């Protein structure tokens, strides 16, 4: 039987009424737990996995697929509506998504996220089904130096894409990089800048920082404004559905996001965040409305959301072909598979095709189910924004706090949340963009570790960084992205660029 027949067989099983019900339950549970801020997909899946143990393998897999995709999507909902990203991969979604929500365009933002997730999930799952073995070969070529070059590219493109003042953007980025140094150094196991505080040994939690910066900082900022009437939140302006122009502006970012997110997600050390960063930067460059970025550009939601979901399917490539879990969520999935005696690895597609294709079919069904569940709910979700502002922000503060405590029960973590919240407020007050600080915190340790690994392997020879063609190409693109704007600026086009830059906040 060929791959296609297996897939059809899997789909036939997964489309039985009982199975569809399990998928619906999974998606509902996943979304419900995933919308709690601070609870990312990993914890959602860990909490709900035991629920699936009671079912037969087919039912269990499909419910699990539903939980997985539901948890992923639930995180985006809170990012857009409440500016509280539940995990690092939906931080970028909050940037434009929440701006849209506050302008009464929460409906289209949620819709483009849902449909974009669906499109990306669909394409990426099919790519996974038919190309996984060849993709993983390419992904393995990526060693420390190639990853380092990729990080450099991400730094350059992302920092260029934030804010109109390069100086402020870079200040914020370097603040993030400095904070990223806190904690145990991965390569030597020695504590750095933790000042004997045990909670700092593991570094600063990205989600705590993101929730503090975005949600707490903003709540303080709103409360600190004298004239409360100025920035009235309009829950719904125009249709809750996507207009013709929303569609026109969304479909290309969905596709681009998918093709950025999937391969990076498939790389063992790629992660979901980098895809979303690169997608955001790309959309801002290519958009016909760059002035809207920072004020609720739909492309800035569509692209990163697609990238995020595509990378979730990408994560399954090394998991299924190598037995290599590259994210916490994937590690929990591995545990889930093991209960059926399914041992992911190089022989999996050959030894256990029914279950593998069953899983892939389940993912496709769950993906569609997510859309079925969430599109009608959008109207309900946006009602949340009609809640009077003091109540809404009080609610946001409550959920942000609960989420942080839930994910990491310690009073120190809570203190950090509030401390960074104040920092976020001060930065907003003086017009510093807040996204780069979070980007720095995420990318900093990755770039540092990969650079040091590359140099350790080469025993200190720096030329190793440009000796690989892939690394050299990536670094070349990064250099171009850095130099071209400088030349343009020198030729007197600086004003145009500054205008294009737009203001983030």
């Amino acid at each position, binding site marked *: 039987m060929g791959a296609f027949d297996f897939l059809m067989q899997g789909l036939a099983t997964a489309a039985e009424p009982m199975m569809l019900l399990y998928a619906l339950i999974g998606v509902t549970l996943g979304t419900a737990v995933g919308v709690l801020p601070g609870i990312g997909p990993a914890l959602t899946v*860990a909490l709900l996995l035991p629920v699936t143990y009671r079912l037969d393998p087919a039912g269990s897999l499909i419910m699990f697929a539903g939980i997985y995709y539901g948890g992923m999507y639930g995180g985006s909902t809170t990012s857009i509506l409440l500016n509280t990203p539940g995990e690092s991969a939906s931080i970028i979604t909050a940037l434009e998504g929440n701006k849209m929500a506050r302008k009464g365009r929460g409906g289209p933002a949620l819709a483009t996220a849902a449909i974009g997730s669906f499109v990306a999930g669909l394409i990426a799952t099919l790519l996974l089904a038919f190309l996984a073995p060849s993709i993983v070969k390419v992904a393995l070529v990526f060693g420390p130096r190639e990853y380092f070059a990729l990080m450099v590219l991400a730094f350059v493109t992302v920092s260029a894409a934030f804010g109109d003042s390069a100086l402020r953007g870079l200040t914020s980025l370097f603040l993030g990089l400095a904070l990223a140094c806190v904690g145990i150094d*991965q*390569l030597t196991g020695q504590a750095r800048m933790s000042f004997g505080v045990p909670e700092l040994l*593991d570094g600063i939690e990205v989600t705590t920082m993101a929730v503090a910066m975005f949600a707490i900082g903003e709540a303080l900022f709103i409360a600190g404004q004298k004239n409360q009437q100025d920035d009235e939140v309009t829950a719904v302006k125009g249709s809750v559905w996507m207009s013709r122009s929303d569609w026109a502006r969304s479909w290309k970012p969905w596709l681009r996001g998918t093709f950025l997110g999937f391969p990076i997600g498939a790389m063992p050390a790629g992660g979901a965040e980098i895809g979303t960063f690169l997608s955001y930067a790309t959309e801002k460059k290519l958009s016909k409305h760059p002035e809207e970025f920072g004020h609720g550009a739909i492309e800035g939601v569509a692209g990163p959301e697609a990238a995020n979901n595509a990378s979730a399917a990408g994560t399954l490539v090394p998991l299924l072909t190598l037995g290599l879990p590259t994210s916490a969520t994937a590690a929990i999935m591995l545990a889930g598979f*093991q209960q059926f005696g399914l041992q992911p690895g190089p*022989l999996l597609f050959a030894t256990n095709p029914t279950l593998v294709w069953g899983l892939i079919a389940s993912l496709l069904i769950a993906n569609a189910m997510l859309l079925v569940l969430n599109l009608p709910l959008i109207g309900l979700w946006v009602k949340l924004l009609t809640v009077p502002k003091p109540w809404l922000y009080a609610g946001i503060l409550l959920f942000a706090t609960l989420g942080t405590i839930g994910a990491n029960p310690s009073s120190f973590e809570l203190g950090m949340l509030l401390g960074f919240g104040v920092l976020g407020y001060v930065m907003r007050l003086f017009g510093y963009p807040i996204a780069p600080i979070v980007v720095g915190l995420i990318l900093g340790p990755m770039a540092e570790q990969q650079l040091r690994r590359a140099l*350790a392997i080469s025993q200190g020879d720096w030329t190793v960084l440009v000796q690989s063609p892939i690394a050299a190409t990536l670094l070349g693109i990064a250099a171009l992205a850095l130099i071209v704007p400088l030349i343009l600026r020198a030729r007197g086009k600086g004003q145009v660029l500054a205008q294009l830059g737009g203001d983030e906040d």
Partner: protein
Amino acid sequence: MKQFVLASLLAGSVAMPAMADYTIIAPANPGGGWDQTARTMQTVLQEEGISKSVQVQNVPGAGGTIGLAQFASQNKGNPDALIVGGYVMVGAILTNNSPVSLKDVTPIARLTGEYEAIVVPAASPIKDIAGLIESLKADPGAVSWAGGSAGGTDHIAVGLIAKAAGVDPTKINYIAYSGGGEALAAILGNQVTAGISSLGEFDAQIKAGTLRLLAVSSPERIAGADAPTLKEAGLDVELQNWRMVAAAPGLSDEQKAKVTADVEKMVKSENWQKQLADKGWSDTYLSGADFDAQLEKDVTSTGTVLKDIGLVK
């Protein structure tokens, strides 16, 4: 009124049986070995009716020392609180200079264990463990080892191997990854000379022929693994990455006996054995004075190795 009746009924039904409602701290993120151990315990304890309700709480960070510190300070004398830990914690306590150690909790039993495997990519010119040791002796820096976190079991194993081969352990070129999985990618991609992690991490790849197994760290050969032990290869190294469960500090002997009995009942159940088999963990159950002695021994020897590698001053 209705709620009140309901609440008192609930309270009554909870108070009546002498069954403990355990809370298990997994001092790591969801997905890792400790988290999976805690969640497997949760499943088995509940399904076997040993405990009515079991909660798992993740307190991640710093090789488990953050969870350990929190556990020791918040649960003094609480017979219902458990924490999962393991050999990695022994090393982390020393490297992080943790103020709280395993002496500050009540170790109950060792549950599972895995032995280390030393591998090279299939394309590597190194054919056996003797070949690897030869390269190591010729130029320790030129042999890069990919493995899990710095100061963890894998790193300690490399230090022990170097020492046993008469190579200065401070000269080893150990490339730490956040886990065996990420290290595996580096080994498969031919980025490093050799790899070291639990045998289970490499098993599928060895069977598929993409990795070559050179040696294992067990006292005797492992069934199904076609490689000599380190001892056979003339290196006096034996290392097991074990996982354990501990109870809160300040328990009475009676309370400790009760927890130990519950854990023993769990380990002896068919359900537990099946879960272990599914996950590929071996049962290395050890409790009481034997476990205390083994723990003591591991802590001392680990301290020496970490000093030799230069991770602990």
